[in-house]
C-alpha cells in the first residue's frame, strides 16, 4: 500500500518526532511546569519527564514493529477487534486534529500580541492552513525533507537567541537544589506530558520507514533532541527570571528575550528571531498532526487521502475558534496533555501485552 517514494529514512523519522515535539509548548513550558513544581527544580522535572517520554516512545515503537507496513489505525483492530479499534482510531484522529487546532490558535494569539497587531485572526490562520495543505498534498516524503531543513535552522537560531539570555542569568535563581525535597519535582511530572507530545507519531510513521526495525533508535533520538532543548530553555529562563517571575508571565520564553538587549551585534533585540523560528516549528507540528489525522480518516473510512486533507480544513478551522480566550486555550492544552498520558502512555503498554500474548499463542 505504501509506495517506495513514500519511504523515509531513520534520520527523517527522528527529525519528524523532534519537530512535532518542538511546537507551541516551548514558549509556555517554564511557566506550565513551574506552576506545579513551585521550586527552581523544574529542570529535574524535565529530565525525568523526558526519560518517561523516551520509555513510552520505545514501547510504542516496539508495538509498531510487530506490524510492519501497518499504521496504528490498521493494526489496532487486529489487537482489540474491529469496533473497538475503529473507536480508538477515531479518538486518535480527533486527538491529532485538536492538537493541530491548538497549535494554530497559539500561533494566532502570539502573533496578534507581539507581531501583527492589526491582522485579523482568519487571515493568519487561513494562510497558514493553505501553505501547510500545499505541503501535505505531496505526502510524507516532502514533509520529512522540509522538516530536515527546518530543524537545524531553528535549533541553531533558538540556541543563540536563548543563549544570549545568559546576559541576565543569575545562578541564585536556580538555588536551592531540592530545597523542599523531591515531591515538588514529581508533582510537575504530569504537566510535562503535553510538552513531550509528539512521540505518538511513531505509531504511524514506523509504517513508512525504510528500516522499521530502527524505529526504537529513531524515537530515542527524536525525543532526546527536544529534551535537551527544553532543558536549556528552563535552565536559562528560570535562571534569568527566577521561578516566581516565570509563573506570573504568560509567555515566559518570549519575556526572557524581551528582557535583554545586546549592544555591539548588528541587532539589539532578538524577539522577532525567536518568533520567526517558533512559527516554523508551529508549522511543522501543525503539518504532521494534520497529516496524521487525515491519514487516519482515509484509512478508517477508505477515502482518498487528498479528500480527507480538504475535508479536515473547515473542521480544524472551527476547532481553532472554540477556545474563547487564552485561559480556555491553555485548559484545552492541559486536557490534551492528560489524553496523551492515557492514550499513548498507558494504552500502548496494554496493547503491547496483548500483541505479545497473541503472538505467543500463535507461535
Amino acid at each position, binding site marked *: 500500500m505504501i509506495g517506495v517514494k513514500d519511504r523515509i529514512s531513520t534520520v527523517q523519522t527522528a527529525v519528524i518526532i523532534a519537530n512535532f515535539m518542538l511546537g507551541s509548548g516551548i514558549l509556555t513550558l517554564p511557566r506550565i511546569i513551574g506552576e506545579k513544581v513551585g521550586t527552581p527544580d523544574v529542570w529535574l522535572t524535565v529530565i525525568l519527564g523526558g526519560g518517561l517520554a523516551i520509555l513510552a516512545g520505545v514501547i510504542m515503537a516496539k508495538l509498531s514493529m510487530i506490524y510492519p507496513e501497518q499504521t496504528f489505525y490498521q493494526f489496532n483492530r487486529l489487537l482489540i477487534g474491529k469496533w473497538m479499534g475503529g473507536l480508538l482510531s477515531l479518538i486518535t484522529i480527533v486527538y491529532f486534529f485538536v492538537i493541530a487546532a491548538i497549535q494554530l490558535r497559539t500561533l494566532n494569539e502570539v502573533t496578534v*500580541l*507581539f507581531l*501583527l*497587531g*492589526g*491582522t485579523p485572526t482568519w*487571515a493568519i490562520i487561513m494562510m497558514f492552513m493553505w501553505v501547510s495543505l500545499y505541503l501535505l498534498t505531496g505526502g510524507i516524503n516532502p514533509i520529512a525533507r522540509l522538516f530536515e531543513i527546518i530543524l537545524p535552522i531553528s535549533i541553531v537560531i533558538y540556541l543563540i537567541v536563548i543563549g544570549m539570555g545568559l546576559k*541576565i542569568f543569575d545562578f*541564585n*535563581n536556580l*538555588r*536551592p537544589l531540592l*530545597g*523542599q525535597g523531591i515531591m515538588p519535582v514529581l508533582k510537575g511530572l504530569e504537566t510535562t506530558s503535553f510538552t513531550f507530545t509528539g512521540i505518538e507519531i511513531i505509531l504511524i510513521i514506523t509504517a513508512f520507514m525504510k528500516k522499521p526495525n530502527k524505529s526504537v533508535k529513531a524515537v530515542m533520538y527524536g525525543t532526546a533532541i527536544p529534551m535537551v532543548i527544553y532543558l536549556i530553555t528552563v535552565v536559562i529562563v528560570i535562571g*534569568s*527570571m*527566577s*521561578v*516566581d*517571575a*516565570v*509563573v*506570573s*508571565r504568560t509567555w515566559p520564553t518570549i*519575556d526572557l528575550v*524581551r*528582557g*535583554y*538587549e545586546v549592544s555591539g551585534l548588528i541587532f539589539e*533585540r532578538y524577539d522577532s528571531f525567536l518568533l520567526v523560528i517558533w512559527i516554523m516549528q508551529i508549522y511543522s507540528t501543525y503539518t504532521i498532526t494534520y497529516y496524521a489525522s487525515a491519514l487516519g480518516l482515509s484509512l478508517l473510512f477508505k477515502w482518498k487521502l487528498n479528500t480527507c486533507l480538504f475535508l479536515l480544513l473547515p473542521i480544524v478551522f472551527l476547532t481553532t475558534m472554540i477556545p474563547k480566550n487564552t485561559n480556555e486555550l491553555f485548559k484545552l492544552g492541559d486536557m490534551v496533555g492528560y489524553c496523551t498520558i492515557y492514550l499513548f502512555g498507558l494504552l500502548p503498554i496494554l496493547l503491547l501485552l496483548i500483541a505479545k500474548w497473541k503472538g505467543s499463542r500463535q507461535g
Partner: protein
Amino acid sequence: MNPHILRKSILFCLSILLLMVQTGCWSMAEIEDLSMYVGMALDEPEETELEQKLNELGYDQPKKNLISYTVQIVNKQGEEKSSSSGSSSTSKPYLNITETGDSLLQMEREFSTRLERPLIGNHLKVIVINEKLARKQNMNYLLDFFLRDNDIRLSTVVLMSSERARDTLEAKDNATIPTFRLASMINNRRRSLQILPPVTLTNLVGDMRSHTSYMLQNVVATEGIVKFSGAAVINGKTQTCKGLLNEEEALGISWLKGFGVGGVVKITDEMTKQLVTFEVTQMKSKINAKVQNNEISFDVKIQFDARTMENWSKSNKDFDDGFIERMQTAAEEEVERVVKIGLGKIQKKYKTDIVGFGKALQIQHPKQWQHVKDDWDKTFSEIPITYSVKMKLTDNGAKSTH
C-alpha cells in the same frame, strides 16, 4: 497564439500581481507617524497648569486623581532641526506630557487626544517613580500596566526619585534627551559605587511575586541636572517604599551585597594623618547562614582588591610591607564602618531585608527557611549579623614613591 506561450504569459502576469501584495504588512505603521516614548515618570497627583486649563475647557471623564503620569517623547522634528543647522537648536529634542488620573492605560490613551501621532512604547528605557507615591501605592498596581503591555520590554529600568519624578526628565540644554542621560548613567558603574546595578522589570516581576524586598536607585534632580544619590527601600510584603538610604547607607549595602564593579575607598592614614584613596578593582561578598539550636545567625565575608590611586602621605615607601598592611587595615575598617551604618538602617530602622539574607538562608538551610519565611522581616530584624572585610592592595598605580 501558441497556447503554451499564452499560459506562460498569464502565469507571468499573475506572479507580477503577486508581488504587489508582498511589499508590506497590514499592520504597518510608519515610524515618522508614531510618538516614541522613551521615559516615564509617575508622581503624586498634581495637575500641571496646562492640564487645569484643558480641564476647564472641556468636561473631564470621571476619575480619581491618584497618579500624575508623565511620558517623554522623542521629538524628531526638534532633532532634525538641530542636525541640519549644525549649531545649537532652539527647541528641545524631547517633549514631556503629563496627565493626572488613576488608570495608567486610560491616561496613556488620553495622550492620544492631545497628540497627532499615537504613542508606542517599544523603546521605553526608564521608569522613574516618585518615592512619596511609592510609599502610598503598591508597586504591583503601579507597574501592572507596564508588565501587561505587549510593547514595553522587560529590560526597562526602574528608578526612584525622592523629588518630583518628572523633574528628572528635564534637561537644561537643548542637546540632551534626559531619559538617554539616565539610561547611560547606569553604565558608569565601573566608576562609582553610588550607582547600583539596574533593576529591570524582569527583576521586579520575580521579587514582587515572591515578596522579596529590594532597593531601587534613587535619582534627584534640580534645574535640569540629575544625580544618582542613595537608594529607596521597598518592602517585599507591602510592596511600598519604606524609606530612603542616603549615599553612605546605600554604600554600606553595596558592600554587603558585594555587587560593585568599581569605585573608591577613601581613608586617612593614621600615621601621617593624610588622605589616601584606593580604587576598587574587584569585590565580592559571601553570606553564610548558620543555624544552631533553631537560632539563626549570619556571617558576611567581604573581600575586595584595590590599588592605591592617590596618596597624600609623605611616606616614601609605598612598597613597604608595613605600609601595605597599615593601608589594608585602614581600608577594611573604613568599609566596616559604612557596612555598619547601612546594615543598622535596614535591619533596625526599616526592618527590611534588601541584602538577600533570606535568600542565603533559603539556599543554605531550606528547611529552616520554610519556618521563618512568613514573618521574615520581623525575624530578620532580630538576627545577629557579623561581618568581616578583607582587602588586598594589589598595586600602587603608575607612581611608586614620593
